[in-house]
């Protein structure tokens, strides 16, 4: 399987990465290289093997349901580009 330049542009758009025509070509080469690796791996017979969701075969650790985090708004907002009335301000977005 190999990608088309259009698919590369779509993936870049979904990732919100601006990409020039020249970069589309280089990225296409890189991604196709990754696909070649995947194809090589797919040659391995995995019949009867349950897919793993994580590289480590261990269970998720859990925490007790207690509110433990204090309010640190001032510290967090001190490094924010813009805030007002306790809110983080961002370029206007309306879906």
């Amino acid at each position: 399987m190999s990608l088309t330049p259009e698919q590369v542009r779509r993936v870049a758009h979904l990732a919100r990465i601006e990409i020039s025509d020249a970069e589309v070509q280089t990225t296409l080469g890189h991604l196709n290289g990754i696909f070649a690796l995947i194809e090589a791996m797919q040659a391995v017979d995995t019949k009867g093997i349950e897919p793993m969701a994580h590289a480590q075969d261990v269970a998720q650790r859990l925490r007790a349901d207690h509110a433990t985090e204090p309010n640190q708004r001032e510290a967090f907002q001190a490094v924010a580009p813009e805030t007002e009335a306790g809110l983080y301000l961002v370029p206007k977005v309306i879906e």
Partner: protein
Amino acid sequence: MSMNNWEVVIGIETHAQLSTQSKIFSGASTAFGAEPNTQACAVDLALPGVLPVLNRGAVDCAIKFGLAIGAEVAAKSVFARKNYFYPDLPKGYQISQFELPVVVGGKLTIQVGQGENLREKTVNLTRAHLEEDAGKSLHEDFHGKSGIDLNRAGTPLLEIVTEPDMRSSAEAVAYARALHALVRWIGICDGNMQEGSFRCDANVSVRRPGQPLGTRREIKNLNSFRFMQQAIDYEVQWQIAEIEDGRAIQQATVLFDPDTGETRMMRSKEDAHDYRYFPDPDLLPLIISPDWIERTRKTMPELPEAKKQRFVADYGLSAYDAAALTGSLEIADFYEATVSAAGKPSAKPCANWVMVDLAARLNKDDKEFGQSPVSAKQLGGLVARIADNTISNNIAKKVFEALWNGEGSSADEIIEKQGLKQITDTGAIEALIDEVLAANAAMVAEFKAGKEKAFNALVGQAMKATKGKANPQQVNELLKKKLA
């Protein structure tokens, strides 16, 4: 245009906010209504280097829900990243579950219609999965910018998905109500729709009966049962009109506008999100042992369906009354406490007092059962005094009103203080009747001349003389005897 020969198909997705103290992957508080961003910690803000740690309480809620709907609680489920960009989602992805959800299958019994048209239906559930909520974007005027409040970011949600089993807006609303009652019943969600704790999306399509499913449109964020009904009704009419006019339905996401009563398109299939789900490498699979499930089962209250059947068997209630009294855990508990105060033989009158008199009075003052000024113990005490003939039903209504207004701490106290005790002493009633007869000689003469109406007037006079405290039947009999 007509609804004839069209079948409506509806599936519902619900986001239930879980009643935990802290967020699903961080230790920040989930309390509602705090100052903006005071409950958003480094994990919720997605600061570099933070890692999510799953909240056991959120998993407990999912297990309870799975048990309540007879579903399979997955021994192993996996968290996945749902990728999209929006400023109130700081990580650039929402942690959700995709291929392996925590709850699989299950069903919910719903009651559709009223009175004689009441019928039961089973709605099959597809799945329920754990996920985190996003923050809130405020688009008011911040000099052309949007304000972001991340207090809600990371709040635990259970997304509950049905099969496309509902066939009308009434069924959809009945399902939403039953689910709303259930999540509150088992204590996993407060169900507060104004605060967004329980929000529904409805997938709606129409087809000719027997044909394959039509193309669906999804109505997003229905936060009241009334809006759900209106939105689906409008959407169904719109889709039928489109098809009958020869236009095909395009898959889309729509929003309901309560002001116009219409649905309007938010995004088409072309703009649909491509979420690129993949397992979250920051989280290991969630393993739920059979032991954990059994321990949880032991903490669960008796479920609505089981309670309903017990009310029919133990208290001799009709299926309709039992269903109404198990509409919520609050009502059911109130009813049982009332019966326990009044005595089991009074179970049926207790049902009437709770469902009719008390419910109407609460409704009038816009109050919930939990806010009733008359306690179950007080109401039971009142019903007990009707049962032992201390007061008549009519006087009981007076005593109820007095209890409601706080004129006494118990029915007995009010009956005593206001002298409402029913007069059962035959001699006393006879004396009063004699007075009435003496004072109304004209009426007596009329009756004797054959005017039946005069008898009723005399009963009225006699009841008045007893200030309503005599048993009307007894007065009737005594009067008949005297006039014979």
